[in-house]
């Protein structure tokens, strides 16, 4: 794939240059597919979300003001696409209840992290997709996108405490699943 400067790609996409659009698509295909896979319940939904995200990027690329990272701008569009989908499909039916802040002790992190380091992304994605939709969404927004609990609360219409609870819940569930998958592999081996 020939190298193009970022500005040339942006200009070309604004002109609807198919070659440069495909170049951009290829360049960020994997990144955004992984991103969407963390929000979706399966890879089929993830691919659809990625396509929708890219479509929005190409249709709105003329709105990119040149301030800040272009990848960050695209990333926000894709994340918002995922959120919109989740809100319409799953999250609006979630009842917002007050969750107890105390989660209890976490797992032995020293055992989890090495297992995580050795785990393939696809396997990790499969585990993440088994998380409850709300907890998965909040965890993604907190751990991967870097939003604060306050920001997540305003985005998803919940309190900061609830956001914290979902993050801890998702983290704990994920760690447990990772440990369980490590144990399974050990048993199989």
């Amino acid at each position, binding site marked *: 794939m020939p190298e193009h400067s970022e500005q040339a790609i942006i200009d070309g996409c604004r002109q*609807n240059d198919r070659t440069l659009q495909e170049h951009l698509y290829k360049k960020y295909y994997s990144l955004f597919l992984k991103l969407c896979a963390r929000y979706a319940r399966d890879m089929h939904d993830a691919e659809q979300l*990625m396509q929708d995200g890219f*479509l929005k990027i190409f249709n709105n690329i003329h709105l990119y003001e040149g301030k800040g990272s272009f990848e960050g701008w695209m990333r926000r569009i894709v994340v918002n696409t995922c959120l919109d989908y989740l809100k319409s499909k799953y999250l609006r039916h979630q009842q917002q209840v007050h969750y107890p802040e105390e989660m209890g002790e976490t797992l032995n*992190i020293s055992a989890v992290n090495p297992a995580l380091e050795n785990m393939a992304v696809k396997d990790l994605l499969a585990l993440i997709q088994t998380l409850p939709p709300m907890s998965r969404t909040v965890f993604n927004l*907190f751990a991967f996108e870097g939003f604060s609990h306050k920001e997540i609360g305003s985005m998803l219409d919940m309190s900061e405490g609830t956001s914290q609870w979902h993050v801890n819940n998702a983290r704990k569930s994920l760690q447990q699943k990772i440990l369980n998958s490590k144990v399974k592999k050990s048993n199989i081996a």
Partner: protein
Amino acid sequence: MNANAFDKLLIDKINEQELEYRPSHWLDMAALLSASDKLATAGYARPVGTHQLFDGLLVKKIDDGFMPYRPEHWAVLALHLPATATNKDLHRSGTEKFDYLLAQKFASADQDFAYKPNSWSALAEKLPAVRQPQPMAATIAAKNTRSIWQLAAGIAAAVLLLLIGSLYWLQNSPTQETVTNDIVQGNTDNAPKTKTNTAPENIPHEEAVAAQQTAPFDDRKEEDTHNAAARPNNATQIPGTHAQLTPDNRLPTNELAGNNPAPPPQHNVAQEPTKQNVLEREDALRRLQEIREGKANQQQNFNQHFASNGVKHPGTTVALGGGVNYGSLNTGYSAGITVRRKIAGDFFVDGTVAMMYNNNASNIVANNGPSVASARPAGAAARGTAFSSVASPAIDPVQRLYYVQVNPSIGYRVQNTVNVSMGADMQRMLTGAPELVQPETNSALLLPSVDLGVTAKTDLSITPNVQAGIMYREGVNNLLRKNENVRYLNRRYVQVQFKYSIPLSK
């Protein structure tokens, strides 16, 4: 201070929680990092590891101009940190490390998904075939947002000032004066003339004498002896036309039959636009057309015009515009050209040359009654008006006044889109006669052929090229000319203006 020292300081800042730490931010910045020659030549090692990676990215950002790099910033930062800053490794809790490892996992390139060409084909079918080139989003968004608010603000300001001007006009309109020194009987010798196309009669300036009393002002004077001599019956003489006012200011109706009022001097007030004005207008229209076709220039002008810090507004602009006047005696409109030149900082000078039209009809009718020839059937008695018990002797009072206006001013740019200015105003009446005597309710004032005044105006840029403005004009003829025998008509009005400006230089 070298790169490593800066890195240490930054890590300390993060550890002290003065900078909010998010793993994803590092990943974002990592995506921007490439094998930059700048980093190598600047002496920074290729980033490896966590904080060196962050440091490298930060330096790259600075070098790329995302952040203005100044060495003194580092010095200032160092003052706020402990004297013995140590190169601590980033401490993470187990939980934070778990999140960090997760993020690292997904950022790792060797864990990418294989590219599927079919997915691109499916997406390409949904993309539009052809897209028109669109301007930058920032300017569109900013332009749309600003245009709406500025248009609303401009309209609101114009309406408000119009209301204020109207209230002021209504308060000062000459309705309260009763006729005490009223208009005249006419001569029987002069036949009525047609309304237009009559050759102007020159009224000698010496014969144009105004009454001493003024209507709206307090500085009323007694008639001087000079005028008294000219009017032995202590009446006002209207030059060129009429006999004197009777002392009791009443005109017996039976006398009118034998005293057909002489027609006032007829002036060819219909003024054709000069060739020069037509050429200027065509030239301006041609320039307008060129500008409409060149939208990139317009966008550039927008950025220059509305940039706040560091970018100045255009040095020289030419504007075409017009306005509508509202005043006690001066309703009408104008059209002209304005050249504005920035002189220093936010100060500017501008000069306007315009053609102005004043409709004097309201004054004529209000103070003199309707034209006798038009209002009164032959042989019928003259009718008074609400303001005068004596009908106007004028067959065809001068209603339309045309001027050439020159209005230099000096102004100041208060905000990016708001200017205020003050200046002088000179308006030359485009008639053959140097001056007109215009009867008023109880005095007659001169309409000077060269009308001097002062102006104060403010304008608001609705769009980069369109300005809306309000101008107040006050006549100062009486102040400047100091003629005891003559009182000039102060042409005072509020003018609502709209201009289209074309920047000529930066």
